[in-house]
């Protein structure tokens, strides 16, 4: 009786939820619904004419061999970027977690690259590895290695993977480090007393206890490679050569902004959205079971 006097009526909880719901609606559901709507339309760039064409955008999309190629590229690209950025960051974090003299400075330098905008990171790597301008490409060529990301698709893919990984390591590093520091030292020390070596301690104690962080980062990284990497690709390779670095999100950008085909671009974002939702669902359904909170 007394308690209900404090929360009179059912309005208050909703009122408290309004800010969060508004943000979610305005910044997530509304744009997403616009994309879905746009994907059923055919419109010129100026928006002067608009025509409902049902699923035609989707049909045209799935009739393009390039779209399947982009899917495959995305698969390779995202696997490489997520795996590399997670494992390298974990390695760095475990090293930084040790009692080092310059640990704070080391940590600071590790975190810095995250402040670099993707397009700027792209330009940076573009200049380092451009076959003729590149400061790092020249020694490679000089050593007799025919480094040519302008024509060799694998070289170009390696280049964008490196740039994307480099950019993401800092973020992962930060979370891994925090995760490592929250593991009680006593558990590890107990393992050491029982005679477990450093590697064994890592794999049987630290890694499982770190799994919530790893799982969180896996989800975030997958979203990162799927959505946030087009700036890097645009600056480094422009999706080339011969479409070797055209991922699905880059294609969304290229078709919509460079090609002015908003309908197809919207249809692609809807497909991409569905894939990421599915991936995240799978991660939560199956991978999360292995997570030990």
């Amino acid at each position, binding site marked *: 009786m007394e308690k209900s006097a404090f929360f009179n009526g059912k309005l208050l909880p909703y009122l408290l939820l309004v800010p969060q719901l508004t943000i979610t609606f305005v910044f997530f559901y509304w744009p997403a619904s616009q994309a879905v709507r746009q994907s059923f339309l055919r419109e010129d760039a*100026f928006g*002067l004419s608009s025509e409902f064409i049902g699923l035609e955008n989707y049909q045209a999309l799935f009739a393009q061999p390039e779209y399947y190629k982009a899917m495959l590229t995305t698969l390779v690209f995202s696997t490489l970027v997520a795996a590399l950025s997670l494992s390298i960051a974990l390695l760095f974090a475990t090293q930084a977690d040790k009692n080092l003299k310059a640990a704070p400075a080391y940590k600071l330098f590790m975190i810095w690259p995250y402040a670099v905008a993707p397009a700027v990171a792209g330009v940076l790597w573009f200049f380092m590895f451009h076959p003729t301008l590149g400061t790092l490409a020249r020694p490679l060529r000089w050593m007799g290695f025919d480094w040519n990301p*302008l*024509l060799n698709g694998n070289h170009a893919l390696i280049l964008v993977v490196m740039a994307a990984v480099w950019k993401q390591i800092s973020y992962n590093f930060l979370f891994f480090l925090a995760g490592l520091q929250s593991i009680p030292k006593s558990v590890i020390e107990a393992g050491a007393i029982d005679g477990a070596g450093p590697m064994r301690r890592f794999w049987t104690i630290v890694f499982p206890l770190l799994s919530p962080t790893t799982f969180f980062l896996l989800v975030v990284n997958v979203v990162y490679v799927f959505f946030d990497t087009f700036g890097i690709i645009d600056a480094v390779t422009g999706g080339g050569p*011969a479409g070797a670095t055209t991922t699905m999100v880059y294609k969304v950008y290229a078709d919509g902004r460079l090609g002015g*085909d908003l309908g197809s671009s919207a249809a692609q974002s809807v497909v991409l959205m569905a894939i990421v939702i599915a991936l995240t669902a799978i991660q939560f359904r199956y991978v999360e079971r292995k997570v030990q909170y």
Partner: protein
Amino acid sequence: MSLRKFSAAAAVAVTLALGATPAHAVIEIQWWHAMTGGNNDIVNKLAEDFNASQSDYKVVPSFKGSYPDTMNAGIAAFRAGNAPHIMQVFEVGTATMMSATGAIKPVYQLMKDAGEPFDPKAYLPAITGYYSTSKGDMLSFPFNSSSMVMWINKDELKKAGVAEIPKTWPEVFDAAKKLKAAGHATCGFSNAWATWAHIEQFSAWHNVPIGTKANGLDGFDTVLTFNSPLHVKHLQNLIDLQKDKTYDYSGRANASESRFGSGECAIFMTSSGYYATAKSTAKFDFTSAPMPYYPDVAGAPQNSIIGGASLWVMGGKKPEEYKGVAKFFTFLSDTNRQAKLHQESGYLPITKAAYEKTRADGFYEKNPTLQTPLKELTNKEPTENSRGLRFGNMVQMRDIWAEEMEAALAGQKTAKEALDSAVARGNTMLRTFEKTAK
């Protein structure tokens, strides 16, 4: 100072400031452009000079980023209902702009409505053809135009024992082989703007079509045709030479122009607008020469086509504002001003009179490199195949053509397969565009 005192003071200041300007309101004309560096200064200077020359209108230039950025900003502004009066759009955006009836005000219409003297014949046909309807009505006002030329490092050619500047493709291939033997191991010859060089300019220069309907100038129902035996032969030559870097691909845009300036590539095709950079970076004797051609093609060389950008007037503005825009265009067309612009910026003069004046002044004797693109453009009376080109979605289409070229040069496809695929994919895009363009 209290707030009331402050606002009173501000009101006085505003009144004084207003009193200083002429009694009637000055009409502002917004001009969005994509010019950087020295060319940005030229844009601002033009606006200042125009504003100083009269008191009714004020042209306000704003820099909006790269060419695609500027175009997208203009399109977004139009959708939001506040487009600028004048928008600089690069040549490949022409089809998109002209298909947007209602979003634009054609220049010929503008000049007629405003009663400004305007003779389309006063402009160089090779330039205005690109921006006119098939009936000859000028849709946009050419601003900065360039064409593609072959830049030559004379010192290196001499060292390699190439006595004459090559004129034909076989001569270029020979020279490149000699250059390669003489130490240019990574680059016999190369070019920037891959598709502009080997598809667009190549076709016009050899008087072969890129697509039907006069390369799309006569209608959006155009179909690409640049997979002809000549195109295949040329691409095959490049593929063969790429293997040992007698030819070395330099990417889709012009980031690799420095390969010429650094001396790596002694023969390099790129825009004539590269002049200013070449002058400041090349530490050797250089010149520009016309693009090479295949001597066994009847009628080659024909004439080259332009690149660069033009000024589009956006629709839905007030008549008095249009009058100001028209006056500004008349101001830009002035012979002395055009001649000066051409000589300072290296961009082409747009009027015949300005070209004649520069020639009469003896400017080209001192600067022969600046005349090469003009000689190419005016080499012959333009034909259906060399007036220009107008394909929807051209910005992205260039990327798709380049993709196929890259696949061929990397050995993943044959020349024929690559060009067939470029044509097929391009045609799909053209059909999509045709459906939206009314």
